[in-house]
């Protein structure tokens, strides 16, 4: 009993690390490679989660759909819809300076949150969408989540392969160049806006995939799952602590910060009753403190960025 409890906790933790790893890789494409300040991670995460929820849940009078489609359709759909949102946002804002993108992205996240809350015909409002299947649940009999963990691992590996190769390719080289020095990248004949938009869309597609993975893991999505604290702040902390510009750093950051985050939740459980609310504030404080310590001792994160291995080696 004890052992299965531990195993269950381990599987849960690793799955969440996998999902946050996907989000951190997506943000790394935008911030780490390109220097685009997207403070609206939650928007693309939530759009991905709700897209797959609507596409794959059983038909219900409470919300749009569900269409009962297979997982893979939900996953692809989540990426596509998040990517389309990013394309629209990107074409409008990416010609602006980066601080304006930051403000715009906060606005987008807020708009998405309000739509999820208020367009009940589509999203069932604050009550959310339930009955989202967890695929591969029967892969290991008796351990429903283990099969899904394998699936999350495979998708994380694919995403990692994709972003790492793109980073090593001339595509990533141009992004780094325009992050370092936009006028010089222009002077080197690069269509800066097109590169920016492609990086913004790719990062957002990946965040949408992360959202889909979360929805199928949790089986239920509601607007409270995508609060900025959980969905944006944590991802940023993971990337910065792990090392922005370094994909392995992003994954390491997801692991470390999630362990601290969920570890402090247990800590909160041990505190005397009545201190529960203080405890949740303490968690945020502890994560912030950890970030400060990492940045003071390793300003570029646990695994700093370095020029990638050359393609022709």
């Amino acid at each position, binding site marked *: 009993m004890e052992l299965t409890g531990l195993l269950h906790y381990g599987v849960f933790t690793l799955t969440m690390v996998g999902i946050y790893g996907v989000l951190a890789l997506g943000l790394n494409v935008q911030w780490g490679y390109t220097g685009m300040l997207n403070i609206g991670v939650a928007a693309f995460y939530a759009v991905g989660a709700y897209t797959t929820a609507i596409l794959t849940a059983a038909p219900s009078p409470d919300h749009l759909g569900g269409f009962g489609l297979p997982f893979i359709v939900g996953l692809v759909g989540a990426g596509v819809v998040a990517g389309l949102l990013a394309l629209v946002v990107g074409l409008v804002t990416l010609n602006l300076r980066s601080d304006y993108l930051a403000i715009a992205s906060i606005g987008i996240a807020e708009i998405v949150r309000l739509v999820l809350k208020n367009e009940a015909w589509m999203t069932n409002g604050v009550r959310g969408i339930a009955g989202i299947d967890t695929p591969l649940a029967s892969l290991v009999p008796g351990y429903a989540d283990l099969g899904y963990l394998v699936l999350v691992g495979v998708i994380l590996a694919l995403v990692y392969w994709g972003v790492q190769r793109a980073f090593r390719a001339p*595509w990533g080289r141009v992004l780094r160049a325009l992050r370092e020095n936009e006028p010089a990248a222009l002077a080197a004949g690069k269509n800066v806006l097109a590169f920016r938009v492609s990086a913004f869309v790719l990062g957002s597609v990946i965040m949408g995939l992360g959202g889909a993975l979360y929805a199928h893991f949790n089986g239920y999505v509601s607007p409270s799952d995508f609060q900025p604290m959980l969905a944006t702040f944590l991802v940023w902390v993971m990337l910065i602590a792990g090392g922005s510009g370094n994909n392995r750093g992003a994954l390491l950051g997801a692991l470390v910060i999630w362990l601290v985050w969920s570890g402090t939740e247990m800590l909160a459980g041990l505190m005397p009753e009545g201190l529960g609310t203080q405890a949740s504030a303490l968690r945020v404080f502890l994560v912030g403190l950890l970030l400060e310590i990492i940045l003071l001792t390793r300003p570029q994160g646990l695994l700093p960025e370095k020029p990638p291995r050359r393609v022709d080696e």
Partner: protein
Amino acid sequence: MISVRNIVKAFGGMRAVDDCSFDIADGTITGLIGPNGAGKSTLFGIIAGFEPPDSGHIYLGDEDITALPPHRRFHRGLLRTFQTPRGFENMTVLESLMMVPAHQTGESLAGAWFRWGRVKAEERRIREKAEDVLEFLQLTHLRDTLAGRLSGGQKKLVELGRTMMTDARVVLLDEPGAGVNRTLLARLAEDIKRLNLERGYTFCIIEHDMDLIAHLCHPVVCMAQGRVLAEGSMAEIRADERVLDAYLGGDPSQAGTSADETREAAP
């Protein structure tokens, strides 16, 4: 090659470029001189497409390129550098050269993911080219150094090197000599000459160092207050009364014969 026709550009009430017209003839190294605030760098920005003019036209050959974005002008062989060298601090010298060639397969995500073999082959070719450029500039030893660690003069050389990674026709150099020590400056001047003679690059050079201008440039265009004041050989320019009044004569801090003094006066 490049024709500047009646270009006007105002910032607020100040006309930085005021009905300016001149030509950069094919195969020349044209010098562009004039006191600070004459509108030279603004004009470079307009020629390269970094800023739109209020009115007037830029022609490359017979083509009106006034409305083309910078990367399209680049694809036609029109390149610029910057007054303060702008490098890619966290990229190696080799990388910052290799990023230049246009239309690389691996610049698209589809290319990077699905045509890796081709990307590899291209990278090999581009790297060899970059290594040739480094050898030409005698910078081979800095190949894997991060560009942020270079000295000002080395950055200028790398910037010149970037123009050599593509089939340039016209290169606009904004104060290539600024902040460069004498030894490197001599090398830079020789490199510019060789590129002009051996590869047929047309140059237009903004510079306050009159020795460098006299050594390299013919013809020389002198601007003041946004307009062309005089054009001709360096000897003609030096003898021109108006140029002496506006730039070369009088106040020694504006003289321009001593480059360092002028640079101190620069903003």
